[in-house]
């Protein structure tokens, strides 16, 4: 971007020192501007990341000072051979599978519906997005109450129409589904808003033209809306998957990883090993493996998005 002066004679270009200084001329002020952020960044992001990597090769204990004894790759070997690790990974994946489709599809459908309705959009936004701002603890307490055996709203409501409820949070095979239901209620609003914004960016003329051509609403959605929202959908899916991988709060408060560890997620397993069992070295190795999983998903998204960017 060429510099422009506003009502001044163009003396600036001539008055700057020519040659080498130009590339680095702002070095001094730049340091001051960057310093606060970079300092905190190195201290609290980069530093710990490297320290965590270091600890993963030792048998560090939380209650003992220092690094403990060097164990090489034993922590990684233990993690990869540990059924607890793989089951917690599976639980996390299962949770992702349970939550991502509803959170993407339902949000899309509801946004579509909301887009068609002209008035009262603020009401729908409130209804769907209000849960999103709640702290996880609030959401958890409310849903624990709804899921309570005998007294819970869900059991009573289903009972009225003749469906018997399982023990929502106490039955191993159902507990994760219950957590998924609560999570969908909690986080749908974000995707809803995202989709709604995307929908409103689609020019109305496209729809009108299609309607004139005799296309019904269904076809309009299939032919116009879905393709144009492809980028938003990819973003929603990837954000959703990564957020699901990092799930912790719901499990911690609502089931404590139970019953019988059936809902323990990877992050909760890391927490258990590091802070309940004090095995900080092992937990660091687990964290590194977890990081690789998240990285892989992000990389997959990056690869997916690049061709889309080129198309757009």
């Amino acid at each position, binding site marked *: 971007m060429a*510099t*422009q*002066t506003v009502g*001044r004679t163009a003396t*600036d270009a001539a008055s700057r020192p020519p040659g080498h200084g130009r*590339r*680095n001329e*702002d*070095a001094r*002020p*730049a340091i001051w*501007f*960057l310093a*606060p952020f*970079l300092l905190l960044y190195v201290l*609290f992001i*980069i*530093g710990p*990341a490297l*320290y*965590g990597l270091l*600890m993963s090769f030792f048998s560090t204990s*939380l209650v003992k000072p220092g690094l403990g004894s060097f164990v090489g790759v034993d922590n990684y070997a233990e993690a990869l051979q540990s059924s607890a690790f793989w089951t917690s990974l599976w639980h996390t994946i299962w949770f992702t599978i349970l939550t991502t489709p509803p959170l993407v599809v339902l949000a899309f459908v509801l946004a579509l*519906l909301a887009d068609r*309705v*002209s008035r009262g959009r*603020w009401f*729908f936004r409130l*209804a*769907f997005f*209000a849960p999103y701002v*709640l*702290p996880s*603890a*609030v959401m958890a*307490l*409310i849903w624990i*109450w*709804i899921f309570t055996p005998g007294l819970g*709203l869900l059991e009573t409501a289903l009972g009225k129409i003749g469906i018997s409820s399982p023990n929502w949070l106490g039955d191993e095979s159902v507990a994760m589904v219950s957590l998924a239901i609560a999570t969908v209620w909690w986080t749908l609003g974000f995707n809803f*808003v995202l989709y709604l*914004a*995307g929908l409103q960016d689609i020019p109305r003329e496209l*729809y009108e*033209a299609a*309607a*004139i051509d005799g296309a*019904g*609403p269904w076809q309009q959605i299939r032919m116009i809306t879905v393709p144009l929202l492809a980028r*938003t959908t990819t*973003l929603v899916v990837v954000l959703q998957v990564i957020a699901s991988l990092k799930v912790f709060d719901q499990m*911690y408060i609502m089931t404590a990883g139970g019953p019988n560890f059936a809902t323990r997620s990877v*992050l909760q397993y*890391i927490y258990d090993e*590091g*802070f309940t069992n004090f095995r*900080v070295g092992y937990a*660091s190795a687990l*964290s590194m493996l977890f990081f690789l999983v998240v990285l892989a998903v*992000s990389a997959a998204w990056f690869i997916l998005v690049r061709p889309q960017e080129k198309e757009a």
Partner: protein
Amino acid sequence: MAATTLDRPGTGAQATPPDVQTRVKLFNRICAGVLIAFALLWLVPLAWALDTALKPNAETTKTTWAIENPTLEAFTNTLQNTDILKWYGASFITSAMTALLTVLTASMAAYAISRMRFRYKNVVFWIVLAGIMIPGQVLIVPQFREFSTVNLLNTFWAVILPQVPTAIAVFIFKQFFDGLPKELEEAARIDGASRFRIYRQVVMPLTRPAVAAVAIFTFVFTWNNLLWPLLVLTNPDLMTIPVGLSTVQGAFGIRYADTMASAILGALPLIAVFLLFQRNIVEGIAGTGLKG
């Protein structure tokens, strides 16, 4: 961006045929109906929580919406028997400080990257970008160790500091700055203003949307963060709302009205934030989403 419904006459050369119009009207009615049903369904949990909180504890065993003896005793119980007011304070302080520091540090760093020329600029930018890849949860173990070593556990700083360096905030600000026209800054430069003055008096006043978005999002995310404060704030005096509420479950047992009252009280501040800043939040999400 006024909404249009499809049963208005088109602005094209032809109006839509009448039979299509009625079909579309019916379809829209159905859409509205389904949407309202879902919205009401979505409101049920919060409404139920409020309903339960207004009952006396003994009455909560009757699973009906009707309240025989409406009372606020659950709320007063919670206010008296828990440290919820202290939790409010702790959450407010940590969230506000984090938001403030994040906006300051991130915008300054982004300004340097966007507007200044210095060697290694790209290196710095890529290092910051890499940070977006690292999920915070991966760092809890070494961060805990770090704070334990310097004796800063159980302080608000332990909660605030690790949440300040947010690579995404830098990114957002940089995008925004890149989009600002440079004329005003150049003029100020010529007038001899220092970089910092330009930043403070010229650029930042124009950056309000980004500041609002980053501040609000940081505030909300810090407020709702459970895992990290759970680890570092074991002193019940200092707990933030999520951490404090996570102990309520065990302490209250079957006093369901009290539990719901504490949940509602815990939710109030953020609902207030949401109502106040709805538009900023929504625009923030929309902006991030569409720009990728």
